């Protein structure tokens, strides 16, 4: 339904815009600037607080805040360019803002990219009439290890608090006091601990909220910004990486309206310093019998690699991380599959192309009317931005049903497939709603296994392929699992068995290196080559360690959870050769010609597995490929019975999730440590009261000889019989545990 068009006049220019268009936007569409501070449409309805946008509206005696007005037919608006009333009003606003502003631009990080500076230059008073002492505050105050707050610079536009309350809904950053004493604060000076906290730095239109990592690091005129995407989760938020002297100084959002809407999680925003971690490997390492390890040069390393590969006689297994670019995975696959005929691979969590007929942009979540999330893992921990989309949907009135151990509908751990089966049946009320809704969305949020295929079968059964507003998403555990799997498949048609025992295990990337299953394989392999970023990951069990590069140092592409192919641009030159460069050289030794250029590899690959998108298309706000038609409807396979909750009396089923703030990169950022999951065990209210455990008590969790001591947290949403903790705290425990109140609790 096309909105009615109305004609408005701004500074004498006639514009046709849809009725109700915000006047700031309407003016911008005509190339006319209306200055703003508080206006930020992503934060919800405009609030009209700062009064920077005051304009003259014909027929109204007083200046009006343009940001809170919608276009009506015949409306005539004058900005400061053509109205003295507007110019005076805007000048007045700036004078009032500056009355208590410290004017410390020379030492302010925002200097040079500061809206307050810019607008004062264009609309503000040239001098000050204020002769009284300004309000002074202690400054800067750390509101978390990541963010510093300078209250003197704050102009109280409330963007940050509106983000905290109305977008992330974390309720941590608030305004306290009233009137001229108002200020931004956290509760009792506790840190602003929330997964999206860093967005407030970018939202702040002055230098009041700054990143502790970026403070005093660079000035806007001596930096470059490289457009890229984040490589830390399957969403692939579009980013802009600030570079100075070949160092990544900060990561900011580059707003892809269909993917991330301009938000980043703190992991994506604040992790770039892992590039310069002290234990980064910068040259190849070889295991030596007595002294442990030795650094070797690259020629030796390639000789060594060649020898290990040849020596394995085709009994090679490759473990991939899912963090590789499509091109890297493809190059590796060609080397091993074409070169030595070794196709065996441990691929990251299965991502299914069966979901493609139900493909939608993530932004569709915001417009959905019914969303059903199944699975054990909190959406936030797997694909953080999806959590924001879900919140937005809920605020817009969507019904969001989560079915899981701590869902709005409780379900036993591991029962997601059974849930899908139930939803497909015709006796389920929710299933019935899903069948008729025009805007329904299904999301699978862990655990792994056949989630994508199971969900696709459900979506097909519900007829989602026939309703363009309905879609389904699988949240995989790795950033590019699908791209890697497809690249691996595209490299060769040949199938072969790895053969037993494993002659050589090739471990690609940090995630694979820290995967217990991969380590287990390594124990049974004759030799191991590992490609990792950091020292501790493979040293000790790999015969040869080749230094890896990070996503910030690579050119290439990633396929995100929507199936969108997005381009990664090298922001920083790595301290080591690019993987594809040496794989190419190694390829030559096995008679395989592999281009060292990702763009060439992409050209080869794209028609095979990426639907033929061009390299150019993937660079700036990559499009989503269209939905393919549904192949043959398969019907929902009967789900295996989930394990019964609480196998024996007094024992619990342990639900573990991989926390967003975990992993090799996060572990190396001191400022991010406070975001890592607390050593807590979540218990249902029922179990807590039965065991006489209160929140904060010490609990002892044990299974099969392993014991961990954690703090109890009562989660009123959690299903009885299950307990939940972050993987990193319960690594040694089995899935069935005994929980007891600790001593001194």
């Amino acid at each position: 339904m096309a909105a009615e068009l109305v004609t408005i006049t701004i500074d004498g220019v006639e514009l046709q815009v849809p009725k109700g268009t915000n006047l700031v936007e309407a003016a911008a569409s005509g190339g006319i600037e209306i200055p703003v501070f508080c206006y930020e449409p992503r934060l919800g309805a405009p609030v009209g607080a700062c009064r920077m946008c005051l304009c003259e509206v014909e027929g109204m005696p007083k200046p009006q805040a343009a940001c809170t007005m919608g276009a009506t037919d015949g409306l005539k608006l004058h900005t400061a360019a053509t109205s003295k009333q507007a110019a005076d009003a805007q000048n007045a606003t700036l004078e009032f803002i500056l009355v208590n502003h410290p004017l410390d631009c020379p030492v302010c990080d925002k200097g040079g990219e500061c809206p307050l500076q810019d607008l004062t230059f264009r609309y503000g008073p040239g001098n000050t009439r204020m002769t009284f002492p300004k309000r002074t505050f202690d400054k800067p105050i750390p509101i978390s290890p990541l963010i510093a707050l300078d209250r003197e610079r704050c102009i109280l536009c409330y963007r940050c608090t509106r983000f905290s309350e109305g977008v992330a809904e974390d309720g941590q950053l608030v305004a306290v006091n009233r009137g001229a004493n108002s200020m931004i604060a956290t509760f009792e000076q506790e840190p602003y601990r929330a997964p999206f906290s860093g967005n407030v730095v970018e939202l702040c239109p002055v230098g009041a909220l700054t990143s502790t990592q970026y403070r005093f690091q660079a000035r806007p005129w001596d930096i470059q910004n490289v457009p890229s995407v984040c490589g830390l989760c399957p969403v692939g938020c579009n980013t802009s990486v600030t570079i100075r002297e070949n160092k990544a100084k900060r990561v900011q959002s580059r707003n892809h309206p269909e993917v991330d809407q301009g938000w980043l999680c703190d992991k994506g925003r604040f992790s770039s310093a892992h590039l310069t971690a002290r234990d980064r490997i910068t040259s190849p390492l070889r295991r030596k019998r007595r002294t442990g390890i030795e650094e070797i040069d690259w020629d030796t390393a390639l000789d060594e690699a060649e020898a290990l590969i040849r020596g394995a006689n085709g009994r090679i297994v490759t473990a991939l991380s899912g963090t590789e670019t499509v091109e890297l995975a493809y190059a590796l696959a060609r080397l091993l599959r074409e070169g030595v005929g070794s196709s065996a691979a441990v691929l990251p969590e299965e991502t299914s192309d069966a979901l493609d007929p139900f493909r939608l942009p993530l932004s569709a979540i915001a417009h959905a009317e019914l969303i059903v999330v199944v699975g054990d893992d909190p959406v936030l921990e797997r694909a953080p931005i999806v959590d924001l989309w879900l919140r937005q949907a809920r605020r817009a009135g969507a019904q969001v049903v989560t079915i899981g151990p701590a869902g709005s509908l409780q379900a036993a751990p591991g029962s997601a497939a059974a849930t899908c089966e139930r939803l497909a049946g015709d006796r389920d009320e929710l299933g019935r709603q899903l069948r008729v809704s025009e805007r329904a969305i299904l999301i699978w949020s862990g655990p792994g296994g056949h989630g994508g295929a199971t969900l696709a079968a459900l979506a097909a059964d519900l007829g989602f392929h026939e309703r363009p507003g309905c879609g389904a998403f699988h949240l995989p555990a790795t950033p590019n699992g699908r791209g890697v799997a497809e690249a691996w498949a595209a490299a060769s048609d040949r199938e072969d068995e790895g053969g037993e025992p494993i002659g050589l295990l090739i471990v690609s990337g940090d995630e694979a290196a820290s995967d217990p299953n991969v380590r287990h394989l390594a124990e049974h392999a004759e030799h191991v080559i590992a490609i990792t970023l950091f020292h501790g990951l493979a040293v000790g069990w790999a015969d040869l360690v080749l230094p890896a590069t990070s996503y910030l140092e690579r050119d290439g592409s990633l396929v995100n959870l929507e199936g969108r192919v997005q381009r990664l641009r090298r922001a920083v030159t790595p301290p080591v050769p690019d993987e594809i460069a040496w794989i190419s050289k190694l390829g030559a030794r096995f008679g395989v010609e592999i281009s060292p250029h990702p763009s060439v590899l992409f050209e080869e690959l794209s028609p095979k597995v990426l639907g033929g998108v061009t390299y150019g298309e993937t660079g700036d706000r990559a499009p989503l490929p269209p939905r393919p038609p549904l192949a043959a409807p398969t019907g929902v396979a009967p789900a295996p019975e989930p394990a019964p909750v609480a196998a024996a009396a007094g024992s619990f089923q342990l639900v573990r999730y991989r926390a967003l703030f975990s992993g090799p990169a996060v572990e190396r950022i001191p400022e991010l440590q406070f975001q890592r999951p607390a050593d807590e065990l979540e218990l249902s209210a029922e179990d807590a009261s039965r065991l006489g455990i209160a929140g904060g008590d010490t609990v002892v969790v044990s299974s099969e000889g392993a014991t961990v001591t954690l703090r109890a947290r009562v989660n009123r949403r959690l299903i009885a019989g299950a307990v939940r903790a972050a993987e990193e705290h319960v690594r040694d425990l089995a899935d069935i545990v005994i929980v007891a109140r600790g001593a001194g609790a």
Partner: protein
Amino acid sequence: MTALYDEIQQVAAQYPQRRSAVIPALRLAQEAHGGWLPPAAFREVADALELTPAYCQSVASFYDMFQLEPVGKHMIEVCTNISCALVGAQATLEAFESELGIRAGETTPDGEFTLRTIECLGGCGWGTVVSCDHRYRHYVKPEDASRVVEELRHAEH
């Protein structure tokens, strides 16, 4: 669950949206904590209404009747807005100050009284208005201060 938790649930049930109960809940918490809101009080209210302590403190700090610091057992508030000021509120306040030996905004060392100035209480025609433990007294003259203080001292609280 605590008595405060239950009381808050009752109040919240009156409203179409539970968040509306923040002010009444904070008032109950303030009464339960001896007339002011220590950090623990915000945690309790937040827990009962499924909000954050930061949010509750943000709301409380907007309103003058919530105390973020300990106060005396009795609260004496002298209106000093214009109608009362025109008929001598300043002298009345000073009389209370010397009677209690403290300045406006302070609490007596024995923790018995807090003395404050307050904006227009809505008794302007009968000034000076003084609110004692939230009960108004009208036409309070400086010479009444000692009697008022004595009465409060012996009042059941």
